[in-house]
């Protein structure tokens, strides 16, 4: 599984990355978590409100920092 955290690198993006890793840990899942700061790629997903979460190429969530328990639902 490949997970991408989209965002220019502000605090919310770091928080989303941390919450995602926590969710993976709680699920005992292995996945690569990539931080995407390149604007071209972020805009390619049509995202204007960061941070956003992409799982296996599919945009799951944007403009918020959900809790780990909520991120789990995006992962399974």
């Amino acid at each position, binding site marked *: 599984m490949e997970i991408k955290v989209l*965002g*220019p*690198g*502000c*605090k*919310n*993006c770091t928080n989303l990355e941390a919450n995602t890793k926590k969710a993976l840990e709680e699920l005992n899942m292995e996945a690569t978590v990539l931080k995407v700061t390149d*604007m*071209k790629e*972020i*805009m*390619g*997903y*049509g*995202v*204007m*409100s*960061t941070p956003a979460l992409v799982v296996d190429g599919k*945009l799951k969530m*944007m*403009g*918020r*920092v*959900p809790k780990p328990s909520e991120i789990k639902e995006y992962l399974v």
Partner: protein
Amino acid sequence: MLDFLNGIWSVFTSILKFEWLYDLVAALVENVFKLSMDTNLGSSVHFFIYDVIKILMLLSIMIFLISYIRSYFPPERTKKILENFSGIKGNIMASLLGTVTPFCSCSSVPIFIGFVESGIPLGVTFSFLITSPLINQGAIIVLLAAFGWKVAALYIAMGVIIGIIGGIVIGKFNLEGEVEGYVYEMSMGEVEIETLTRKERAKFALEEVTKIVKHVWLYLLIGIGLGAAIHGWAPADILTKYAGPDNPFAVLVGVAVGIPLYADVIGTIPIAEALISKGMGMGTALSFMMAVAALSLPAMILLRKVIKPKLLTIFVAITSFGIITVGYLFNFLLH
């Protein structure tokens, strides 16, 4: 029946005015801390406790309500709406939507690219970018708490007008060449705007409350602390002389100080409230707060990624000019 309604109304307004809290804290200061309200220390301690409780309560309730409304206007939808308007109507819509679209300065770059890429004129984009940080939801709430709804409404109206006019002026200059070239080469993906349930909107609103309170509480405490000190000790006669509404340079100085100041606008409001009570002009204080909100250095560094220095300078100049005008207008109207 009328008596009954009047009764309810007076209870409602006294809750909103927080007179009950004022009296409660006054009793606490006088009876528990054994400080007289007539001393500098007593009135400062009272101001601090009263303001912290009042502002945190108002902030939480109002951010929840406003965020609930804002959940209907994600930037992706705002963009779709704006694509349908051209000319001055576009500037007006962009400025109005700037007041309701959730905005954090780190989203300004993707929003700018998204707008420009989908063919929204540069001037319309700037109407949005000027109004959005000015009408900061936290700032409006604290303004409401400190100065009442009339000043808050005037602030919003002025913010919207500055955005409309600023955008129109930038649009007239034909500055498309002053946007970084790569912005035009981007291709924007299509995104499905999710329809949220009522529960999801409430959750979004609750998250916003925690996020904003977590972000601002320290600024707020520092601001209220300084405000309390000003309240107790600042000499009113000197402030009135140098920062009062009759000093024509006070507004200019306020804006010049506000631009480089890296503070959260919410923290500056209690300071402004205290300064005004000591004789500073209302317009001077408001333009100072607007400068802090709209023209912070970090926000400009982010914008520099998408626009060249010339356009950035024009943006700062026009916004500053608008803010200064509002300062003089408020000083003239309210004193």
